[in-house]
C-alpha cells in the first residue's frame, strides 16, 4: 500500500507518479554498470519513498551513495511513459541529502566560486572570452562559468558566427551547478538574477545551463546555440576537411539538452551542413561528465565513458562534437589518455572552422 507522505521532502504527486514498471531500467547508465535495482531510476525512486515515509533513516549509507552515484542525466525521464519528473525528484533529494557538510567539498568549493560574479569576471579578463558592451537589443550570449575559464574559444567562435550576439561580462552564473548539487533554492535565485541581467533572449553554448535556465525563465527565452543557429538560418559556411576529404564528424548529445529540452536534430543538421555526419551508437547516452560528477566520482565517470570512447574510435571519425563544456572536457581528456587521433570540439568551434575555410 502506498504510504502517506510524511516528511514533505518531495512533492507528493511527483513520487506517486512512478508505478515501478521498470521501463526505465535499460536507459540508466548506472544500472547498466551494476545490474543492481538500487542504482536504477526505479530503485532510486523506491529509496526516495523510503526516505519520505521514514522507513529509511536520514543517514542511511545507501541513500547517500545512490543520490551521488546517479549521474542526473535524466535519460530515465525520456523513456518513462508515466511521465515521472525524475530530474526534479533528484534535485529535491539532493537538497535534502546534501545539506550542509554532507555536500562533497569539491562541490561546495565550486559553488562558492561561481556564485561570486566578480570572480567570474576576473577569470574572464585572464582568459579572453568574448566580451561586448551591454546592449539592450539583440540576444545575449551566456558565458558559462566553466566555459569562461576552460574554453574562452567557444564564446569567441559563437560571436564570430553570429555577431549580433552580445556578451556582457557582468552576468554571473546560471545556478545549474547549485541545483544539481543540492541547493535548488540558490540555483533558482541565480537563474532569476541572470535573467534580470540579461533581459530578452539568452543563447547558451552549454546544454546543462540551457536546460536549467529554461526551467526557471521559460522555454522561449532560452536557446541553446545549435538551436539558435538552426532557427536563425546559419549563413553559408565552407566545409571542414580532414586532409584531402570532407571530415567525418560525430556528435555526443548533451544529456540535459537532449533529455531536458528535447534538442537533438539541430546540432546534427548543422554538422551535416559542413561535414560528413556519423551517428555514433549510443550518441544519446551520458558520457559520464554530468556536471561535477567527473570530479566527484572519477572512477564511475570513466566507467560510463569507456564504452563511448570505444564506439568513437571504432567509428573512424575525425572529430567528435560536444554541445556542453563539461562533456567536451570529458571527451578530450578521455581521448587524450588513449592517445587517440580523434579530436573533440564544441559545435561552434567546428562551425567556426567551416567559416574560416570559406573566408
Amino acid at each position, binding site marked *: *500500500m*502506498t504510504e*502517506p507522505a510524511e516528511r514533505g521532502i518531495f512533492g507528493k*504527486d511527483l513520487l*506517486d*507518479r512512478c*508505478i*515501478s*514498471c*521498470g*521501463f526505465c*531500467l*535499460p536507459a540508466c547508465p548506472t544500472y547498466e554498470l551494476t*545490474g*543492481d*535495482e*538500487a542504482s*536504477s531510476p*526505479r*530503485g*532510486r525512486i*523506491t*529509496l526516495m519513498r*523510503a526516505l519520505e515515509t521514514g*522507513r*529509511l*533513516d536520514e543517514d*542511511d*549509507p*545507501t*541513500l547517500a*551513495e*545512490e543520490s551521488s552515484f546517479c549521474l542526473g542525466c535524466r535519460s530515465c525521464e525520456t523513456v*518513462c*511513459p*508515466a*511521465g515521472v519528473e525524475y530530474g526534479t525528484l533528484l534535485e529535491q533529494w539532493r537538497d535534502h541529502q546534501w545539506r550542509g557538510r554532507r555536500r562533497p567539498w569539491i562541490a561546495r568549493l565550486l559553488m562558492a566560486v561561481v556564485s561570486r560574479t566578480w570572480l567570474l569576471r576576473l577569470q574572464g579578463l585572464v582568459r579572453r572570452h568574448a566580451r561586448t558592451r551591454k546592449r539592450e537589443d539583440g540576444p545575449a550570449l551566456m558565458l558559462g562559468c566553466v566555459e569562461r575559464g576552460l574554453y574562452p574559444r567557444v564564446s569567441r567562435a559563437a560571436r564570430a558566427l553570429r555577431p549580433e550576439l552580445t556578451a556582457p561580462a557582468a552576468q554571473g552564473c546560471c545556478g545549474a551547478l547549485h541545483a544539481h548539487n543540492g541547493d535548488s533554492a540558490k540555483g533558482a535565485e541565480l537563474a532569476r538574477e541572470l535573467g534580470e541581467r540579461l533581459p530578452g533572449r539568452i543563447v547558451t553554448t552549454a546544454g546543462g545551463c540551457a536546460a536549467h535556465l529554461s526551467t526557471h525563465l521559460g522555454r522561449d527565452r532560452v536557446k541553446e546555440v545549435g538551436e539558435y543557429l538552426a532557427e536563425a538560418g546559419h549563413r553559408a559556411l565552407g566545409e571542414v576537411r580532414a586532409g584531402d576529404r570532407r571530415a567525418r564528424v560525430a556528435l555526443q548529445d548533451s544529456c540535459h539538452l537532449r533529455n531536458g529540452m528535447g534538442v537533438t536534430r539541430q546540432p546534427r543538421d548543422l554538422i551535416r551542413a559542413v561535414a560528413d555526419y556519423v551517428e555514433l551508437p549510443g550518441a544519446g547516452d551520458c558520457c559520464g561528465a554530468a556536471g561535477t560528477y567527473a570530479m566527484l566520482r572519477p572512477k564511475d565517470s570513466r566507467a560510463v565513458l569507456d564504452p563511448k570512447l570505444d564506439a568513437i574510435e571504432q567509428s573512424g571519425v575525425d572529430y567528435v562534437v560536444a554541445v556542453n563544456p563539461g562533456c567536451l572536457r570529458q571527451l578530450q581528456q578521455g581521448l587524450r589518455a588513449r592517445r587517440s587521433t580523434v579530436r573533440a570540439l564544441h559545435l561552434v568551434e567546428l562551425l567556426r572552422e567551416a567559416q574560416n575555410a570559406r573566408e
Partner: protein
Amino acid sequence: MTLPKQDTDALAAIVGAEHVRVEPGELAPYARDATPLFHAEPDAVVFPATTGEVAEVLKLATERGIPVTPRGAGTNLCAATVAERGGIVLVLTRLNRILEISREELLARVEPGVTTARLADAAGAEGLLYAPDPGSRTASTVGGNVATCAGGLRGLKYGVTRNYVLGLTAVLPTGEVVRTGGRLWKDVAGYDLTRLLTGSEGTLAVITEVTVALLPTPAGSGTGVAYFGSLADACRAVTAVISAGLVPATLEFLDQKCVAAVEEFAALGLRTDAGALLLFGDDGTDDVVAGNLARMAEVCTSAGALEVTLAEDVARSEALLAARRCSLPALSRLNSLTILEDATVPRPKLAEMVDRIDAIAARHELMIATFGHAGDGNLHPTCVLDPDDAGAVDRAHKAFAEIFAAAVELGGTITGEHGVGAAKLPYLADRIGPEQVALLRRIKSAFDPAHILNPGKLGS
C-alpha cells in the same frame, strides 16, 4: 527476521562479500516489483554469477531453512518476486552472457539475466527472429520470461515463450543441477520437465541457462490501425478476422482511455475520439504482408470500423508497436495507482467479456481501462485510482474478484500470461480445482522438500 551472521558469512564465502547486501537501504529497493500494493522486505539480496554459486546458495538455504525468491528484472505484475516470507532475494542479473547463437541449428543459448530485447537484437543481427515479444521486452529478462511463460505482441501467430524453450539448466533447491531438454526439436525422453519449469514462477528451480528456438527473420512486416466506435465493436472485428481464416502476427486492442494516455506520451497522431483501436500486423514476404493487411483492413471495415489506416513504413510500424507496449505505464498518467489485471477468454467471448467489465466498473464506480492481446483473447483490464482513497482500493479488489469470476464463467482463465504469483494465488483454486492444487503441492515438494523456493506463491 534477520539472517544470523553465520549465514551471511556463509553466503559471502560463496558469492563474495560485495555481492551480499543486508543493509536496510540495500534491501528497500527489492521490497517490490511492478505489482502495486505488495511490499515485503527481504533479509538479504544475493547476486550470484554462476550456476555453481546458485547451487551452493540454494543448498545452504535448504539446510538452514531460508526462503529464496529468484528475481530477474522485477517487471512482473503478480507480486511474484515479493519476498513474502523474507529471506533471500536471489538476483540473476549478473548471469547475463549470450553464450551462443547458431544459424545452423536455429537456436540461441543464453544466461537468464540477458534482457529479452538484447537476445532479440543479437538474434536479429544474425538474420534470426526470437519470436516472443512481451511489452516489457527492453527491461525483462529471458529467465523471467521463461519462469512466467511470457506472452506478448506476436502471440497469435507465434505463440508464447513456452513454444520456444528447447532446454534449460536449472538448479533445484537441494543444490542438484538438472539439464532438461536440450538442442533438439524432437525429444520425448522422460516427463517434459522443460515445460513444467517454463511458467513455474521460480517455485521449483532456479533457471541458470536457457536454450531457445529461433526462426529466420521474415522478409518484411507491416502494421495497420482500425478505429471502432466501441471496444465491443473491436472485439467483434477480432472474431471476424479469425473467422476469415487470417492469422495475423499481431492483433492488439486498446480502448479510448488507453489510446488517449498512449497518445499523450508518444504523440503519434492517433485518433483519441474513437471508442477503441485495433492494431493489426503481419510479417512475411512483402506481397504476402501487403495482401494480408489489405484483407484485414477489409474485414475490419465490413465489421464496422470507423477508419482504417496502414502504416506507411517500418519506422511508423515500430512506433505503433512501441506505443502499444507502454499502455500500462502511460495509463498511470490518469491517476497514480494503476492495478493491471490479466484475464483470458475464448475469442468469441471477448465482446461479452468487455461488456461485463464495463458493467462491473460502473457498479463499483471505478475507472477501468482495457487493452490487451485481442488475438489471444487476453485482456488487461486496468483500474486507475487514487491511492489515498481506501474505499476505492477496496472496491477495486472486489471488482477484480468479479472480473476473474466472469472470465472463468465464460470459459476463460484468471491469468493469460502474467502468472499467479502472490497476487492471484487466492483465485487459483477457482480456476483449476482442489485436486490440481493438491497435485501442484506434491510436485512442489518433490522439487523443493524444504519449501524454501519462493514460498507464498504457486505450490504453497
